C-alpha cells in the first residue's frame, strides 16, 4: 500500500515527489504551504497540473474504487442531507463500511450530534463528523486527515489519536497540521512543508529540531517556582530562564532537551518540589518559517561568497 506523488504540481505545491508507505506521516505546514492541495490531490478531488498521484498504482482522481478505500477529513463541507444521521449513514454505506452511524459516533462519545440537523452544525462539528467517518471506514488504504487534533473539535483527542494509530498499523495515514505541538503529539517525526516544497524531515519534536539554531525550552509548573528558578539559574545545562515574581511556572532554556529535563527532574526529586506539568515550548510556524528563510539566505550567501573567492574576486 503506497501513496506516491511524482513531481505533482497544483496550487501551492511545486513538483512534489513523495512516496509514503503504511504508517503515520505527519506533515507540518498550513494551507498557504499547500497542505490542503496535497490532501486534495491525494484524495482525488483534483488532478495535478503536472506529474502524477498514485495510490497502489492507480490515480485516485480517475478511480472511484480507490476513493472508496480512502478516508478523507480535510474539509468542513456541509452535508446535503437534512439530518446528520442520514448524511453519515449514506457516506458510510458508500465506503461499504460495516459500522452504523450510532456505533461509529459512540466510539468517540459524539453520538448526540447524529440527531441534529446538518444546517445546525458549526464548521468544527462538521470537521469532526468528517473525521469520525474517515476513522470509521473498515480497512482503508489511505487516511487523509487535516488537523485531526484541532482544539475545540469535540471528540476526545486521545480517542482520535488511538484510532489514528490503530489505522496506521495497516494503512497510509497522512495528517497535516499547522501546530508543531499537534505534530509532536501525533508522531515523533514530521515532514516540514513550506511554500509548496518539502523542506526537510524532523526526527524529534524538539524546538532545535523544528528551528535549527534555536535553543530548547521547557515550561515547568511547580508550586516552588521561585526556589526552582533560583537553583536552575546556576545549573550548567540551563542557558536562560524566564520567571516573574508571583508566577507558578517558569521557562528554562538550554542547548539540549534531555539535559534540561534531567536537571529539572533531579532537582524535583532531590528537593521534593512537585512538578505538576512539564512541557516543551515548541516554536510556532512563523518562527519555523523565519528560521528556514534565514538558513536559505545563509546558504545562498555562503555559495555566492565561495563562487566569488573561486573567481579570485574576494571582496
Amino acid at each position, binding site marked *: 500500500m503506497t501513496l506516491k506523488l511524482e513531481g505533482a504540481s497544483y496550487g501551492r505545491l511545486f513538483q512534489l515527489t513523495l512516496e509514503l508507505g503504511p504508517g503515520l506521516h505527519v506533515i507540518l505546514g498550513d494551507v498557504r504551504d499547500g497542505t490542503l492541495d496535497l490532501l486534495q490531490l491525494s*484524495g*482525488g*478531488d483534483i*488532478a495535478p497540473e503536472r506529474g502524477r498521484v498514485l495510490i497502489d498504482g492507480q490515480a485516485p*482522481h*480517475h*478511480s*472511484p*474504487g480507490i*476513493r*472508496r*478505500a*480512502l478516508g*478523507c477529513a480535510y*474539509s468542513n*463541507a456541509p*452535508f*446535503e*442531507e*437534512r439530518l446528520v444521521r442520514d448524511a453519515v449513514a*449514506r*457516506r458510510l*454505506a*458508500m*465506503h461499504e463500511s460495516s459500522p452504523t452511524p450510532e456505533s461509529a459516533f459512540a466510539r468517540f462519545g459524539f453520538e448526540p450530534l447524529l440527531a441534529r440537523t446538518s444546517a445546525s452544525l458549526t464548521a468544527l462539528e462538521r470537521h469532526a463528523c468528517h473525521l469520525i*467517518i474517515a476513522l470509521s471506514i473498515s480497512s482503508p488504504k489511505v487516511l487523509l486527515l487535516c488537523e485531526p487534533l484541532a482544539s475545540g473539535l469535540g471528540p476526545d483527542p486521545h480517542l482520535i489519536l488511538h484510532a489514528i494509530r490503530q489505522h496506521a498499523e495497516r494503512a497510509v495515514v497522512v495528517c497535516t497540521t499547522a501546530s508543531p505541538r499537534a505534530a509532536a503529539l501525533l508522531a515523533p517525526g514530521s515532514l516540514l512543508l513550506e511554500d509548496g516544497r518539502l523542506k526537510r524531515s524532523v526526527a524529534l519534536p524538539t524546538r532545535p529540531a523544528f528551528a535549527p539554531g534555536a535553543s530548547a525550552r521547557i515550561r515547568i509548573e511547580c508550586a516552588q517556582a521561585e526556589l526552582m528558578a533560583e537553583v536552575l539559574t546556576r545549573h550548567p545545562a540551563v542557558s536562560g530562564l524566564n520567571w516573574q515574581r508571583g508566577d507558578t511556572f517558569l521557562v528554562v532554556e538550554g542547548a539540549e532537551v534531555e539535559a534540561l529535563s534531567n536537571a529539572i527532574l533531579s532537582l524535583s526529586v532531590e528537593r521534593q518540589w512537585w512538578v505538576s506539568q512539564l512541557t516543551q515550548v515548541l516554536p510556532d510556524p512563523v518562527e519555523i518559517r523565519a528560521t528556514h528563510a534565514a538558513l536559505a539566505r545563509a546558504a545562498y550567501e555562503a555559495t555566492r561568497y565561495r563562487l566569488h573567492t573561486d573567481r579570485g574576486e574576494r571582496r
Partner: protein
Amino acid sequence: MTSFSVGVNASLRRVKHPLLIAGIFVAALIAVVVALVERRLGPGATDRTLTGITFGLALPLVSLSIVTRACGRLRLDRSFSELARHGADRRGLAVGQSLATASFCAVIGTFLGAVSVVAARGVHDPALLHDTWATASVGAFAGAAYACWFLATSSMGKTGAGRYVFLALDWTLGSTSSALALPFPRGHVLNLLGASPPLGLAAGTSAALLVGLTFLVLALAISRIPR
C-alpha cells in the same frame, strides 16, 4: 447505492429549496399577469405571452436558477465533489443530476406553459384543452432542453459561469432566424410555438435538432468529467 441514484436524490434535495420554489411561483404569477394584460389588448394574446414572457424570459431564467442551485453554484464536475470524495462515480452523479434537473425543469416548463395558456385564453375558450396540451408538451421539451444546455455549459469557467454566457447568447442569437440561432434552444422553441423558424426549418426538424443537439452537448460534457 449507485452514484446515479445518489446524484438524483442529492439534486432533487438541492432544488427543493423554498426560495427557488417561491421564485418559480413568482415567475408563474408574472406570466399569468402578462397573459391577462395581453388578453385585454386583443387577439393573439396566447402567442405573444408564450413567445414573450413565458418561454422567452421566465422559463430560461427559472431553468438557470434550478441548474445553478443543482450545481451548488459550482462547475458541473465539482458540484458533487464531497460525494465523489467518498467513492461516488462523478459521471454517474452527473447523469443522475442531469436526469433529475431536466425532469424538474420539464415539469416547470409544462406548468408555466399551461398556466400561461389558461390565463391568455380564458377557461371558456373552446380551443383551450388542445392548446394547453400542445403548449405543455413544448414547455416540457423546452424546460428539459434548457436544463441540459445549462448543465453542459456549467462545465465552462472556474465556477461554471459558462451557463450565464449561454443564456446571454441564447437571448441575443437564439431569437434571430439566421443560421446562428440553430445551436440555441430559443429559436427551436419559438418555432415549435409557431413563430418564425430559424432558416425556415419545419417544426419536426426543429424538434429533432433540439433533442439531438441537447443530448449530444450534454453527453459530451459528461464524458469529459473524470470518473
